[in-house]
């Protein structure tokens, strides 16, 4: 220890401290700060670039996935549309058929009714005419055949009532 203290040189200590602190300040200003900031900048650039590349990759994957999804959706939609169209067309055809059937039935029914009416009218007409004719015929027959008025009328009435018209 004593030897160490004896060896200690104040002058050397003074110069060492002066030189070292001087060097420290000079290098800090002119070397370490620029070096460290340059290196840091470079590292940040590399990191950012890597991140950007990673992001671009992820973005592209997302876009591709999107495309696939959209394509799939479009396909599904198309299928749905086609099915809908098919259904609608069938519906329309069926509706048309039903409507036509109904119309036809209606027309048929109306026709039948008209025919019935015509028929009834014709029958009534025929009945009236047949009645008139029959009366005429009977009058003429009976006029010729029958003298007694009373007996003639009874007979005619009986005859008319006996006629059943269908």
């Amino acid at each position: 220890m004593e030897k160490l203290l004896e060896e200690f040189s104040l002058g050397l200590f003074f110069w060492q401290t002066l030189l070292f602190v001087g060097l420290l300040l000079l290098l800090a200003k002119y070397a370490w700060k620029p070096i460290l900031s340059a290196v840091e900048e470079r590292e940040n650039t590399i990191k950012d670039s890597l991140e950007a590349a990673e992001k671009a990759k992820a973005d592209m994957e997302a876009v591709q996935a999107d495309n696939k999804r959209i394509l799939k959706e479009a396909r599904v939609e198309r299928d749905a549309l086609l099915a809908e169209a098919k259904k609608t067309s069938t519906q329309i055809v069926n509706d048309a058929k039903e409507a036509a059937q109904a119309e036809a039935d209606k027309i048929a029914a109306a026709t039948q009714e008209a025919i019935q009416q015509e028929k009834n009218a014709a029958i009534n007409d025929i009945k009236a005419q047949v009645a008139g004719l029959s009366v005429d015929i009977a009058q003429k027959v009976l006029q010729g055949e029958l003298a007694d008025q009373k007996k003639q009328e009874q007979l005619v009435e009986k005859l008319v009532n006996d006629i059943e018209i269908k």
Partner: protein
Amino acid sequence: MKRKSTILISAKKCVALLAILFASFAFANNKEDANGGDLKTEIKEYIAHHLLDSYDFSLFSYTNEAGEHVYVGAPLPIILWDNGLKVFSSSKFHHGETVAAVDGNYYALYHNKIYKTDAEGTINLDETNHPTNLKPLDLSITKSVVSMILVFALMFFLFKSLADSYAKNGGVAAGVGRFFEPIVLYVRDDIARPNIGEKKYKKYMSFLLTVFFFIWFLNILGLTPLGVNVTGNIAVTFGLALLTFLITNLTGTKDYWLHIFDPLGSSMAWYAKVPLYIILIPIEVLGVFIKPFSLLIRLYANMQAGHIVLMSLIGLMFIFKSWLGSPLSFGLAFAISLIEVLVALLQAYIFTMLSALYFGFAAEEHEHH
């Protein structure tokens, strides 16, 4: 059978080698006795001299045919404060052999220190063999200071050019500084960040980087034939450790001081803490000083020891003076210098690492529990 015999032969060879080695030791010892035994002392003195700082930048010295010591190197300026600034060349001392006369004052070198003496250069010693002469304030530019100025210039040039190359080269290092960029990053990512923490490491970076390269370069410079031993000098390591100490304690957070003066916190009642703290607080306070002190001793001792071992092995070559011993110690010296290259880096790393660790303690802010 054949293998057995080869093993036998190699064992025999080993024994023979050892025998020769011992013989050469014995031989060397004999020769030393014949030479008067001062070679060992001379080597010892040479090593001791090398480990110390020097007032001139001598590269090597030899004794010429006329028996004079010839020094090859350059004198350095001596700067003294002794009732006024005295600046003169160290050549006036003639390597401690003469007294330097400056403005009517006389100065002499004694054990590598400058003392004020009379015209004859008398050094008065007390009972414990310490000079009683006055010691002027010595701010000389010594060999170590020159080495540090060299490293100063080298580092400034290297790292300035590295910094500039980023701007010129589009954010990529170029030129000689490029070699040091990974090391700068290593200091940042493996020393500063893990020890100090992501939030605060930036403000310590300048010190850590400077101290790391400063120590490393000086260590390496110490391994060159220039023969400087800067980081093995207690004043230098003291200066470095003092800065670590100052930075640690000046940037200490509230938590850092709380940890020293109230290490147990609220985990215990105050009356239970009092008897513990009588012991704990002095230990913690002592720790504040011991931490940087260990830094200065570790670096000093490692570099000092490395130089001693290396130079002793080189010295052994001259003691052996035989065909076997000298190459052997040369080989050893070579191996040790390779290890010293590693140690040079390792010690710089350890100093920086531990400084970062201490800064980490100072900067820590933990959640209060």
